[in-house]
């Protein structure tokens, strides 16, 4: 390997990295500017920093607290992730370790539900929610997020459980080990990284979801992305506020994603890339 010849690539990579991160960095910088400094041309790079955007986000101007929507988002995301895992792991088990007949058809059925346009189902879901008093109810949103993420989770968990060495399973059975022991000794070590990847992916997708949240929530169950859009106004400046809100709301995803980059790749590729 002739390392020296590759030197300029490092420079290119750095440039590309900065270019891609620039909008995010600019968003963070703008969030610390005053509204009037945020809307200048040319941009005020060195304008004095202020927390007023964040104060607005936390309700200084309107008295509206961001905590209910943040808590709603957290409970819908975490709640649906837990339910997804509870449903997906047994299903993945039945599709890999002790597969049912035609298991691959079942697997494809799960994936095919991801290809159907969500929007075509929103009206019946809305009408159903209204009819049964589930509008503006975070539990109902949690269920929908569960259905949204379950197919991905089943694929992902299956691809991990398919790695469980069959010989070891059979050996454990021959040794008379019970199901629980087998699960713990043989399956769990392979499954744990899969569970981590699945959780991360389900959490991010639920946290990011906008369409259902917009249509189905109102006063009490509004989620963080819906709350974010409320900072846009057709009258007056709002860039700093929106940037502050966008930064706070993206923070959980950014933190989780940076901390677990490999899990992110596994999750997004439905476990095909490990």
């Amino acid at each position, binding site marked *: 390997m002739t390392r020296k010849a590759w030197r300029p690539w490092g420079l290119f990579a750095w440039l590309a990295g900065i270019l891609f991160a620039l909008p995010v960095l600019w968003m963070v910088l703008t969030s610390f500017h005053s509204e009037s400094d945020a809307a200048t041309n040319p941009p005020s790079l060195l304008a004095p920093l202020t927390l007023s955007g964040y104060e607005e986000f936390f309700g200084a101007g309107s008295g509206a607290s961001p905590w209910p929507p943040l808590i709603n988002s957290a409970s819908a995301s975490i*709640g649906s992730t837990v339910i997804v895992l*509870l449903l997906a792991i*047994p299903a993945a088990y039945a599709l890999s370790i002790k597969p049912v007949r035609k298991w691959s058809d079942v697997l494809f059925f799960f994936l095919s539900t991801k290809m159907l346009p969500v929007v075509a189902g929103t009206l019946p879901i809305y009408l159903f929610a209204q009819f049964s008093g589930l509008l503006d109810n975070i539990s109902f949103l949690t269920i929908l997020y569960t259905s949204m993420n379950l197919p991905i989770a089943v694929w992902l968990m299956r691809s991990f459980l398919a790695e469980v060495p069959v010989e070891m399973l059979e050996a454990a059975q021959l040794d008379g080990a019970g199901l629980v022991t087998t699960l713990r000794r043989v399956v769990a070590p392979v499954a744990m990284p899969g569970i981590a990847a699945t959780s991360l992916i389900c959490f991010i997708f639920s946290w990011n979801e906008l369409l259902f949240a917009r249509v189905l929530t109102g006063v*009490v*169950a509004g989620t963080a992305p819906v709350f974010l*859009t409320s900072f846009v106004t057709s009258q*007056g400046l709002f860039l700093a506020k929106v940037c502050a809100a966008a930064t706070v709301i993206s923070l959980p995803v950014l933190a989780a994603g940076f901390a677990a980059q490999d899990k992110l790749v596994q999750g997004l590729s439905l476990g095909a890339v490990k």
Partner: protein
Amino acid sequence: MARIGARRAVGAATGAMLVAAALTACSGAGGGGAGGANSINVLMVNNPQMVDLQKLTADNFTKQTGITVNFTVLPENDVRDKISQDFSSQAGQYDVATISNYEIPFYAKNGWLAPLDEHISKDTAFDQNDILEPMRVSLTAEDGKVYGEPFYGESSFLMYRKDVFQAKGLTMPANPTWQQVADLAAQADGAQPGMKGICLRGQPGWGEVMAPLDTVVNTFGGTWFTKDWQAQLTSPEFKQATQFYVDLVKAHGESGAPQAGFSECLNNLEQGKVAMWYDATSAAGSLEAKESPVAGKLGYVPAPVMKTKSAGWLYTWAWGVQKASKKQDNAWKFLSWASGKDYENLVGKQLGWSRVPAGKRASTYENADYVKTAGAFAEQTKNAISSADPKNPGVQPRPTLGIQFVDIPEFTDLGTKVSQQISSAIAGSTTVDAALEASQQLAAQVATKYQGK
């Protein structure tokens, strides 16, 4: 072995379902609580006046009445979707919403709003007759009942930089015609480096570019529909007006016109990027505020005309009460407070008189404190609103209410589609003729529903 496995597996699955159900129940416990007997839910547009209201509610309204108000605030387009979704299905999530004078008549006709007459007659302190007449007319439905109370109202007028005009030796007539405005725009163009002649909205949206354009169409003698619902978008008057508007904004209008709306133009005028601006009277409040760089430098004249005497639009964000709401009395208490005289005084004293939600009550313009602050534009605003005639804004009889809109539910969709065509014409990607040709077909399609009704 297989049997034991089966039992365990079934057990585990059932357990999982139970845990899932329990978890959902828990996560739901936090929600669902916002429906307390002594609270109301209000859905409103994210405009500064509403944000002020949101801030003042707890310490004033709630303290006086004990009624808690839960607000949902959304930007204009989103709020309209949400309101029509909730009200059309009578889902009853919201007791009160900000509804404009565009929606109120047909919302009322569809039975989605609660009539307010009974409350009005009982609540004498509210003083319904103090509300300006065009406002009252536009919030009254076909059945003669009142279905909304204005929070603030506006018409449109022309704003211009007096200092720039003086420096260039230009004079603004007291009642300009559009031709005069176009000439002035050409002369003021480039009066200062980077300054354009005039700012006119170009952003797609029936409430964006269509609002000023429709007032131009009206005064040029055009109309969307004749009395018997014949679409008229390709009539010579409509074409002439649109061509005029598009040409003016292309030649002497702001940069980025196809995406410019109210806030972009406001910013342009404040930053000295345009010499004139034709838009809502409510803009004057921000322009004359202390922190505005152009405060005191602006002149205001009525909306430019051609064939009509006046041309300003009429718009109000009003409060409507959902018929399905089970808290009608509390809802009225909120309306009475928010649209009342005392609220204007409260805002004036606590936040400054320039932030008063004005343009709805005659008494506002007799209030010495208000007139002192808003002197530059108060008279012009009141005149503009009072001279607006939502029933007869053009040169021919109209099938329904509306100056800068046609008061039918389909207009949101139709107006938006047409506005996209106009916006493309301003961007130069299509011609005015082609844009109106396409728009005419859309309008004709809508009109067939109403013909013979």
